[in-house]
């Protein structure tokens, strides 16, 4: 089998709760908000934040309190 057609070994992470921002500076802004940052477990990249699994509703509420109207990816 050629390298191009080989199946790539991966690890799947399903049902992960994330916040993604368009700019790194917005992620900084979110992390600077104490009530939101305690719901965030890690910053996976400049623009992607990992949210605690059972805090999804709370995180959306906090985003809205900050004046954001996040797009909810269904």
């Amino acid at each position: 089998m050629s390298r191009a057609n080989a199946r790539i070994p991966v690890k799947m992470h399903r049902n992960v709760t994330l916040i993604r921002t368009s700019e790194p500076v917005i992620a900084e802004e979110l992390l600077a908000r104490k009530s939101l940052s305690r719901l965030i477990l890690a910053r996976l990249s400049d623009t992607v934040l990992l949210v605690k699994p059972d805090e999804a509703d709370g995180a959306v509420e906090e985003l809205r309190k900050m004046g954001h109207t996040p797009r909810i990816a269904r």
Partner: protein
Amino acid sequence: MASTPSPAAGPPAPRPASPFADDADPRFVFRTLLGRLPLATLRLVAQARGHESEAARAPTLAGELTDLLDDPLGSREARRELSDADRAALGLFGLTEARSWPLAGLRLALAMLGVDADATLAGLARRGLLAVEIPPDREATDMAALVVSDADGELEVWAHPALTQGGRLPIAAAAPEVAGTVSRARESDGLEPVIRLAALWQRAGAGPLRRTQQGVLYKRDRERIEEGGLLAAPVDDALAELPDLPSLWMGLARRVGLLAVDRSDDSLRAAPAEFWAENALHLPQMLASAWLGLRSWDERGEPSPESPPTSDPPSACLRPAVLLRLAALDPEAWTTIDALFQSLNADAPGWDRLGAPDEAATGGRRARGGARKGQGHARAAQILERIVLGGAYALGLVRAGEEEGTRRRAVQLTPLGRYVLATGPPPPPRPSFDQFLFVQPNLEVIAYRQGLTPPIVGLLSRFAWWSRIGAAVELKLTQESVALGLESGMTAADIQEVLARHGQRALPGSVKDAVDRWAGRREQVTFHPAATLVEFSSREDRDRALESWMAEASTRRPFLAVADRYILAEDAQDVPTARISTTAARDYRLPPDRCVAVEDDGVTLTLEPSRSDLLAEAELGSFADEDRATAGRGGRRRFIVTSASLDRALDAGLTPAAMADWFRRRTGQELSPAIRLMLRSTTDLDPRPDPWPARRLLVLAAPSAETLDGVIQHPDTRDLLGERLGPTTVVVPESGVEVLRQRLARFGIAFTLP
């Protein structure tokens, strides 16, 4: 009427607990209830239906009898043999879209329609066409006898759904007395309930309505839906005031499907925006049917805590009967409320007691019976007015006028009312006016009701908040409302186009700018409640996969590179499974796995790659430092807990208790002593203890364990020794050194001191 959910905004109606779920298949319920009857009774039912069977068990025979009704030919045969009275009884289930009715309510409604309720219900039960929900703790007996028993009015009666859709109900009762010439006729546009439900839908869309275990809304959510008074305000042009309007709207919204129960947490959530596109055209009819069978709200209002419990049937049972009496009139004829009241009294004498306090509950104090009767009469008249001039009028089912000369209130069914009752053709569509919106630069929108229709109400509800409902209706464009519109699939251009198409003037620039700005702002933050991250072993693998996947994927939901080794997919279905080999998978909705091993030093933690997840990595990173230089076997990532890393974690809010809990969940062990040791020095939980005592000891070292055993055992020397430290060493107290030297000399042993 069992399809009516328990009230969401008030105490549940007093109903016997049912073993069947709210959404249980009525055919299953029907079969189960029949199966509880004794076999001998069922054989009589089969005989009455002309069904021959060799079944030896009641459930088997019940199944056969139900199968006959499930079969289209069998149900057609059964319907052909129904009398008008039978059709009226079964038709009430279909008219109200109810799977079950309370027995007392069904008897009352049939009586109001001039039907011999007892004979009809007993006949249907005898043929197995009705089934009574007998409490499980009661022995099932003859249902025909049960349905005529006064003591069992609260029991629920179920009909097989194949028998309940029969078109126009045959009405045996005479029409009420026709009114004289009527003037000042008026009718509502029927939009008030539609707009109220739209406002409720918006509020539920902004956040789920959470309920207690009793099915009551939490105070915060109740206040949220009542905010601004939009749902609690009286219906603008209703001729009779209705009680507890938020509960009415909530009940209707649930029955038509605008609100649905989320089984995961029992909260009420808004239906998807597609509901409006699929149902808005028929919403007036849907609302009318929902109202006819709504049991979670009652025209009598919520009983006060002091009022005695009542065994009366819900007033929902009166609604179809009252309207069907009006349907007995010629389409052009009017009747007065008084005449309607009298005609109901003639066929169902005593129905007006429905509004009076329950005699049994009040101890049967008959001395004041006359006063109570008068009170009940007035209350019943009020219930009738609330049904006809309140609910039915607001829904556009009834028009009202004034009888000339007497000035009595006169009513007649509208074309919509006749259509809902299956006594007339579909009503003509409302004339439409395209330009009915006045969009103001301050983002307020005034809508003239003449231009509103249920589909347009639905369309506007997707992106503008209803803020006032009256002769003119007001909406408000806000960042949140526009965001919800975008969430439902609209674009900023769609919103502006709707406003421009229906606006009387050009769309103000400030409105256009605001919508564009809010739409742009929404793209700044995306929330993924259940994303899929695909983790690759190297950045090169990830980039190669991303390139090929993007070339093949739809553009609607592109894949995104995250950090060095991940691809983000909004939906797991989008991942091309044929191109990958899944070596490990982790579902973050499941409890966390044990995926961390503690090494012997107690401070080195190793991540098990096949079972670990992003959470574990992040959690570890919060209180330990990754040791990138010495990765463990198989490329396992190692983390070292140090005092500095612990200080960092504690500063960030991690508590020793939370850390101990994490250790139990992720390692299956208690906190290691080494970490506990570090925690002692970094937390205030263990206040700084007294200094540990340290002293120098004199240790005697013997040449062999055997010799030392003798010294420790011998009575001359054993009391001069301290703690044995090892096989050949023992502590000697300073005070006894010289005595020990002398005693050992007796055995030829000497020792030296430093």
